[in-house]
């Protein structure tokens, strides 16, 4: 079942820093939602193939022809922080 520890663990996996009140709220709500979802366990699905997509298409390829890329300057213009042609992020390792 869903408890505080589970919510904290899942939030870490999802890269979400929840507030204390969100943690409490989600502990209750995720529990309710998963309890509702658990009705699926009453269905016997032995031998049933999973459907991952509505239309079966696989290995879609395109001709190996060069086409112009998006403008790098336009892409970089959306960055919260940049330095020349790079995205700037907080320090990853100690010098």
């Amino acid at each position, binding site marked *: 079942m*869903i408890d505080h520890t589970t919510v904290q663990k899942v939030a870490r996996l*999802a890269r979400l820093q929840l507030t204390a009140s969100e943690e409490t709220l989600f502990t209750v709500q995720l529990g309710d939602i998963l309890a509702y979802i658990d*009705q699926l366990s009453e269905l016997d699905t032995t031998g*049933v193939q999973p459907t991952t997509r*509505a239309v079966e298409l696989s290995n879609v390829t395109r001709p190996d022809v060069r086409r112009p890329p*998006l403008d790098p300057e336009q892409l970089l213009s959306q960055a919260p922080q940049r330095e020349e042609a790079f995205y700037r992020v907080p320090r990853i390792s100690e010098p």
Partner: protein
Amino acid sequence: MSLIRTLREQLVKRERSAVELTQEQLDWIDQTEPLIHSFLHLMPERAMAQARRIDQALARGEALGPLAGVVMALKDNLCTLNAPTTCASQILKDYQAPYEATVNLKLEAAGAILIGKTNLDEFAMGSSTENSAYGPSRNPWDLGTVPGGSSGGSAAAVAARLVVAALGSDTGGSIRQPAAFCGVVGLKPTYGLVSRYGLVAFASSLDQIGPLANTVEDAALVLQAIAGYDPYDSTSLNLAVPDYNSALIPDIKGLKVGLVTEFIGEGTSPGVLQAIETALEVLKSLGAEIQEVSCPQFKYGLPTYYIIAPCEASANLARYDGVKYGLRAEPAESLLGMYEQSRNQGFGREVKRRIMIGTYALSSGYYDAYYIKALKVRTLIKEDFLNAFTKVDVLVGPTAPTTAFRFGDKEDPLSMYLSDVCTIPLNLAGMGGISIPCGFDQGLPIGLQIMGAPLAEPTLLRVAYAYEQATAWHQHQPSFIT
């Protein structure tokens, strides 16, 4: 009568110019938008430039596209150049996409005038637009009720005649349910029929773009313009697009119509049930053969969807990390802290909730019990549809179990999820469906949902058109439009 055809005729006869049509819509938006709040951004310059192009083409005696002069809106999860694409989220508050969605280019090539971007539940997750980070839209039929969602801004804009037609996206009912709540036509095409290049991904195995319009004919005209293969979308079907206009024949004699018994059980309001029964009588009087069809696995549609969609969403939304675009929380002392704080500040509560459900269901130890289980039930639901289509040509039922609800009425997430119970099975099966107006309950519109086999859009449109021609529901307008 098709609004698009009427306007096009006026344009061709030079009774009104495209610039005049656009200015009239902008004036009406100016006047009405404070009540409805259907738009997140307007694009008056882009709209006027396109209008001038159409007027010039007309002056030169050139042939006009099928949507020439048609003022349209785009849901704000469709990427546009030179205008924000926010998905109604704080995390994309100032985001400017570097490319155009294929559907936008196709609409403009057909002559449509794109005038603005409409409100939605954040990242299309919701059924009321109450999850928009920029405030909800209101239902033109009753400003105290929601327009439905997630394409609620598009539905409200069409219902209030702010635009002639609009595009929405439908992952679990997000075109059909708001169309029903706002008394307009909403069509969710077969998965793969319309390119999703430039649609911000929510649940990739379910998302599909489609039209909202005032009449079935208008919806068919818009579908015609946006359907077809796109090499930029690897899930797009490489097939010839049929002529949808030729499907619009008001003749359904001998057509087999199945009423989904699972959709008329408890939870469906008496007013909605009454309207569906009356609609079936109309179809019968037009020569259709009505029978009840049971699809026993449909009741598992909602729990199945609330595994699959959040799982896919948790993966799709991992890209919002504050590095390349979108909101970054400051000051950021570590990379991990920056990710976590940016996402927590940028995402609203429902989006976080779904990311949490999806992350949980995909995490080690739960993957088989939840995700694989849901994919297997998805197979069973699809089989229910395919079995039904060996007996009948189309399935029908209500689009939503109730009419539009009031703001704040569904605070509990599960009760909100239940408002999509009639639309979700179709997305899981990847088939096409349409919602058309079929009556009112206490002044609020009711939608009749018609569902078809894969690529059966011509049949859907024929049934919808025949019904529409035999009734006058689509001629009703919210009272503030005079």
